[in-house]
């Protein structure tokens, strides 16, 4: 915890939550995206539709799921559909406004690798792979990405294109016949980035309170571009911080126990 009263992780999650709107239909990745999406739901966007790839549509979990198919997600969903239906009708059918992804490796054009570090056939590290991400990246209206900044993670050249962002920039995406916008927002623990309108290179538009340009550059593997006017990300307010911390405390208790811990806490669900 810094003397600002919140951690870099907290400001990242809350900044990401703020980017989501009440009428968004969001395909949620596990981990940091899941925390951000649920903080949005528990604060300013109570009617947001959260979709997890296990088939749950309009879910409102009381604790963050450990996996994309926890029972809590199904219990609180508007409806649960089969996995083929999820990918065919809802994602490929164009019903998702925001795909919210994390990354093991990310480049400055929003291309994501979660498949291998090193060569595909003889990997140095075999990562889990794409799961839903390759098609989330091409079929969701827009892509938001959230990750912690490290030189290992934010690299000049990713080892594998698990999911396509803006390719090598410019009009690469539309030249491939992809009709959706692709990555439009990157939120890290230090800054908020948006793609340049022409080159599509991620550019820092806002830095979190107390963060310097040097810190942003030192934790990024490519030469960072800053917008002409770099804003300061508004600090998390009391309600946002309390919502996030309560959610994480409930989650921790539930997952450290038998999985029944969630029942011990009062429901904070909206519907």
């Amino acid at each position: 915890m810094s003397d600002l009263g919140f951690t870099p992780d907290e400001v990242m999650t809350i900044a990401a939550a703020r980017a989501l709107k009440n009428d968004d239909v969001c395909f949620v990745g596990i981990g940091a995206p899941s925390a951000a999406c649920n903080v949005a739901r528990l604060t300013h966007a109570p009617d947001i539709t959260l979709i997890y790839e296990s088939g749950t549509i309009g879910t409102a979990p009381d604790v963050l799921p450990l996996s994309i198919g926890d029972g809590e997600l199904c219990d609180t969903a508007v409806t649960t559909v089969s996995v083929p239906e999820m990918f065919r009708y809802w994602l490929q059918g164009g019903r998702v406004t925001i795909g919210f992804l994390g990354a093991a490796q990310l480049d400055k054009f929003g291309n994501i690798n979660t498949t291998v570090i090193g060569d595909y056939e003889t990997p140095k590290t075999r990562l889990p792979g794409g799961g839903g991400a390759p098609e989330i990246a091409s079929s969701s209206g827009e892509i938001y990405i959230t990750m912690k900044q490290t030189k290992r993670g934010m690299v000049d050249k990713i080892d594998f294109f698990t999911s396509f962002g803006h390719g090598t920039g410019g009009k690469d995406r539309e030249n491939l016949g992809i009709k959706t916008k692709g990555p439009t927002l990157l939120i890290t623990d230090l800054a908020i980035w948006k793609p340049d309108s022409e080159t599509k290179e991620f550019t820092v538009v806002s830095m979190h309170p107390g963060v310097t340009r040097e810190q942003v550059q030192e934790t990024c593997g490519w030469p960072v571009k800053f917008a002409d006017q770099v804003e300061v990300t508004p600090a998390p307010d009391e309600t946002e911080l309390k919502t996030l911390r309560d959610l994480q405390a409930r989650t921790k208790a539930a997952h450290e126990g038998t999985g029944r811990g969630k029942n011990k806490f009062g429901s904070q669900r909206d519907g």
Partner: protein
Amino acid sequence: MATFQDLKTAVAENLHDGDVVAFEGFTHLIPHAAAHEAIRQGRKDLTLVRMTPDVIYDQMIGMGMAKKLVFSYAGNPGVGLLRRLRDAVENGWPNRPEVEEHSHAAMANAYEAGASGLPCAIFRGYLGAGLEQVNPNIKRVACPFTGEMLAAVPSVRPDVTFIHAQKADRKGNVLVEGIIGIQKEAVLAAKRAVVTVEEIVEDFDDVHPNACILPRWTVSAICEVPGGAHPSYAHGYYDRDNKSYLDWDKIAAERDSFQAWMQDNVLNAGPQDFAGRVEHLRSAK
């Protein structure tokens, strides 16, 4: 037509060396007991098909049963990487299986095509994604009407599929509820299907008409194995054992601790042990 059998007999009759086998269940209803029986019976040279391999694949790979892996997300959900799979792919221990990797959308479509009796699945996928370069089973076809270039993958047609479900009735019809995942497609795509269930009930007269039912003539064998999904869960019966998934990361980290765990909990155990493992997870009702 479904016959009621004990799990040992059902696995022995339906799973053979060299088979293409799917163990399905999307986080929910993962057929752990069936996978453990396959391990005890020492099946080998298997092509293991599964969207989200997670712990059961990790166990079967670590036991040297896999000739080939077909999957779309090889992680321990919410925990991290699969350490036995990594050891096999990165270091060839105990062997280096062939890998055919897809996305979830591709696997879902491939199962659906298998269930539909089609040779391949066509969908809008893999745009700009690198898997297309490393997996020769991802191809492009032009829509004959619009000319749009679409992805095509071969359908999945397992020799045998294993799933876990909540209930079977006395006739052998099977009820799946909650997150239904890919199980229906995986059963209908397969030549044979073995279903472990939490319980066998008299009939389904109280079940909603829109529930997911696999009619008895789509299933080869039904085995009553209470708790058979553990540490996965069975909606309405017991919760997911999140702690076990976290523990698996440590157990699977080293070859020795992995082998010791498999000896105690799989090779020296049986289907009847699963009921005890879920006792503390059953919802208080």
